[in-house]
């Protein structure tokens, strides 16, 4: 295409877009020019217009979704209003948020092949590309698997591969790592960086993961309420801590440390890279040796929870999915005490969801025993156990059906056979615990995604279970939404509930849990106090996990007496400020 030589990759000028049957525009007067070969990351809270922006890039808006559009929207020199999506597909690959909705063939290989076949890529070349891309996304061993049998993270990587196989000029990814383990997420960003460098592919990613945005992007764009509110090199954007805090966009932990310490350290430009911040702090700490025992005494006095007092007890549990030959769980033994708040982390496909489904009785162990409060659950029905143990599943939309939030929350309580008074009490309690009071009368599907997730928590809480399990409550949630959910869990924990939480969000898990269970492929690798677990960097890497950024920073400063088990920005700043005060 000769015309594609002289223009920018993406050129949106004064673009305003309104979805059909909506009054408020989803994008307002957006001007965004991206040159060929740029690597741009879009951040912003849920509902900021990130997905809408992404869908403009290959003409799905307006060609498929309709709506009213004003302003210029040109991708690789092609006006999106005048070209079919398949015309655009020659130039732009797009990966959508929900991986499941974009997988529709019968096996991994044909899924990846689909787009290449549509573009008429010769067979030999296609095979080469498929081999390469499956290697890149770590799915080589799964070529014949039906997509339905992959884990959430694997599905996400497959969706990415299915688009990359077109080797487009521009690749657009809408929250491509929301279900990926930390190293898996980093790999996605890093692979895209390679493609960007090697093939001069223009990359546009929307994400909530500011750390990676900071690390990989040439440019960061901040969207809020449909408008671009900040834009520029990542160090400039993430230095605007006040703005980002106001609109609930996460600031990378290291940048926040510098920002908190700016007056003490006399910093004016903030770093976004770990080694830079580490170097700055090392300079500051040179010749000093922090004696931190005094600090940790108070830490240590806040009682370390006893590991496992046998409220939930697993004894040598092995589980195999019917029709498979590999154990999804292998000799898993663990014990969780009443009132504990336990985190489960581990790579995609490690068996975390399988584990909790066994605990709750949705799956029955192939061998081994599970006791809840001393009672063997092998003969128990899920429906009957719901009063003791509740599981909040990843996808809230798989259960919402009622006409109002209140009715939705009451459903479980009624099923438990509570009296009318009890139902009313439980509903009120659950709605209050999740902060949904103002939406009581609303139709569930009119709530935002974040509120629907809270509703799915309330729907479980209303059954008044002692144990609550959260399976990936952070998926697709912005910074604020994640913390709100974790706060709900913490509050419930403070009111005596036992909480088990699966997540890939290390910052969150570091902050909220006292104990971590780390899973590797089908087994427990290690189980212990959170701060100790994050010391075991090599072991964690085995299961594609890295400690939170703040912990990594602290670990780089251990030589100067900074404790390596720091889990929060405030902790580190407190130590450093105290040192300054001397």
């Amino acid at each position, binding site marked *: 295409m000769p015309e594609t030589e002289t223009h920018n990759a993406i050129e949106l000028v004064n673009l305003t877009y309104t979805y059909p049957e909506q009054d408020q525009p989803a994008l307002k007067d957006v001007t965004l020019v991206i040159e060929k070969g740029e690597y741009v990351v879009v951040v912003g809270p849920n509902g900021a217009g990130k997905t809408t922006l992404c*869908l403009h890039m*290959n003409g*799905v808006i307006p*060609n*498929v979704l309709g709506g009213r559009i004003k302003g210029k929207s040109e991708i690789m020199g092609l006006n999106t209003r005048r070209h*079919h*999506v*398949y*015309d655009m*597909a*020659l130039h732009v*690959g*797009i990966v*959508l948020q929900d991986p*499941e*909705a*974009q997988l*529709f*063939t*019968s*096996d991994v*290989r*044909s899924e990846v*092949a*689909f*787009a*290449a*076949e*549509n*573009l*008429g*890529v*010769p*067979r030999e070349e*296609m095979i080469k590309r*498929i081999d390469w891309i499956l290697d890149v996304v770590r799915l080589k061993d799964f070529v*014949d698997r*039906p997509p*339905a049998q992959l884990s959430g993270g694997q599905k996400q990587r497959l969706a990415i591969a*299915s688009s990359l196989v*077109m080797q487009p000029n521009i690749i657009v990814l809408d929250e491509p790592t929301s279900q990926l383990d930390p190293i898996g997420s980093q790999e996605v960003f890093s692979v895209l960086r390679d493609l960007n460098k090697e093939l001069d592919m223009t990359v546009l990613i929307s994400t909530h993961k500011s750390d990676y945005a900071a690390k990989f992007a040439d440019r960061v764009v901040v969207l809020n309420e449909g408008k671009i509110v900040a834009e520029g090199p990542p160090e400039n954007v993430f230095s605007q801590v006040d703005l980002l805090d106001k609109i609930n966009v996460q600031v990378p932990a290291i940048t926040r440390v510098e920002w908190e310490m700016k007056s003490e350290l006399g910093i004016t430009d903030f770093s976004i890279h770990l080694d830079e911040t580490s170097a700055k702090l090392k300079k500051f700490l040179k010749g000093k040796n922090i004696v931190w025992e005094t600090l940790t005494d108070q830490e240590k006095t806040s009682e370390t929870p006893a590991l496992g007092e046998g409220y939930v007890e697993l004894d040598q549990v092995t589980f195999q999915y019917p029709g498979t030959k590999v154990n999804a769980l292998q000799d898993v033994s663990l014990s969780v005490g009443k009132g504990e708040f336990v985190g489960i982390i581990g790579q995609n496909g490690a068996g975390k969801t399988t584990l909790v489904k066994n605990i*709750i009785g*949705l799956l029955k162990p192939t061998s081994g025993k599970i006791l809840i409060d001393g009672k063997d659950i092998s003969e128990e029905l*899920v*429906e009957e156990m*719901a009063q003791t143990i*509740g*599981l909040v*599943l990843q*996808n809230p*939309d*798989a*259960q*919402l*059906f009622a006409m109002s939030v209140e009715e939705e929350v009451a*459903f*479980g309580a009624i*099923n438990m056979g509570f009296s009318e008074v009890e139902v009313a009490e439980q509903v009120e309690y659950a709605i209050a615990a999740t902060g949904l009071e103002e939406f009581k009368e609303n139709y569930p599907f009119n709530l935002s995604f974040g509120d629907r997730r809270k509703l799915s928590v309330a*729907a479980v809480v209303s*059954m008044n279970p002692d144990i609550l399990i959260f399976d990936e409550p952070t998926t697709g949630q912005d910074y604020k939404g994640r913390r709100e959910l974790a706060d709900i869990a913490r509050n419930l924990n403070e009111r005596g509930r036992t909480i088990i939480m699966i997540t890939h969000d290390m910052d969150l898990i570091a902050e909220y849990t006292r104990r971590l269970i780390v899973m590797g492929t089908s087994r427990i690798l290690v189980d212990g106090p959170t701060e100790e677990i994050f010391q075991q960097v090599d072991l964690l890497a085995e299961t594609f996990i890295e400690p939170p950024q703040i912990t990594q920073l602290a670990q780089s400063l251990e030589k100067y007496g900074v404790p390596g088990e720091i889990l929060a920005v405030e902790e580190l700043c407190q130590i450093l400020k105290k040192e300054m005060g001397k």
Partner: protein
Amino acid sequence: MSLLTFIKKDTPVHRLNPLTKMFMIGILWIVAFVSANMIVMLAVLVFNIIIWFIGKIPFSNLKILLGVVAIVGILMIVIQGFFWHPTGEYTTLFSLLGKDFLLEGALFGLTLAVKLLAIASAIPILVMTTPVSPFMAALAALKLPFKFIFVFGTAMRLVPLVQEVFDEIREAQRLRGHNITRMNLWKKITKGYLPLFIPLLLSLLRKTNDMDIAIESRAFGAPVKRSYLEDVSLKGRDYLTMIVVFAFGAGLMWLSSYMGWGAGVTGWMAPAVVP
């Protein structure tokens, strides 16, 4: 539904080109359709069962098939027994409400049932041993338009997809204490299905919408000649299989013409189904 889903195994039947399997089924169907000779139809049935055996298609599926055919078969025997119009000699077995039940009619019904079984039992040979993608590539090799093939392929995928979504929803509702299996019919209708089918409907609507975007985004309908990953060229074993199947089919046709298309050995078949 397992009757129609692909089961991954490594057998000679799985290794055959889908086109060969289509050819095989084509021949078997022609024979089973055209001939109503009981021996010929049983030969087709036995042939199918042998292929099932080689292809390690679980015989539990045959049971399902037999179950279905048995019901249809009994219906046919009863209906034909009472309503069959004799064209020659006939034997009355008994009378009910003044209507004669004829042996020839019942046997005709039985023939139809066997025919149905012979035809139906050929389907899993293709469907259960062939993944969807080579199947689609094979259809493309037959020069069918891709849009048609795609609709076909998606339809094949739709059943498991709906099942998947439904399972997820049922799981979620069980976790909320919703146990439909313990409800009586009235309660099921008034309370049981709603929490399952509303999320199913909404999920499927949203999924098809997203899928539409995903399919278009992956260059579906691009104005270029589509290529295929699956290699559907025929190998030696395919030619060999086709020759054997063709010879078998031709042999049975000859047998039919020799013994009678509809008459069979017992001589009770009327020429009603002779082409």
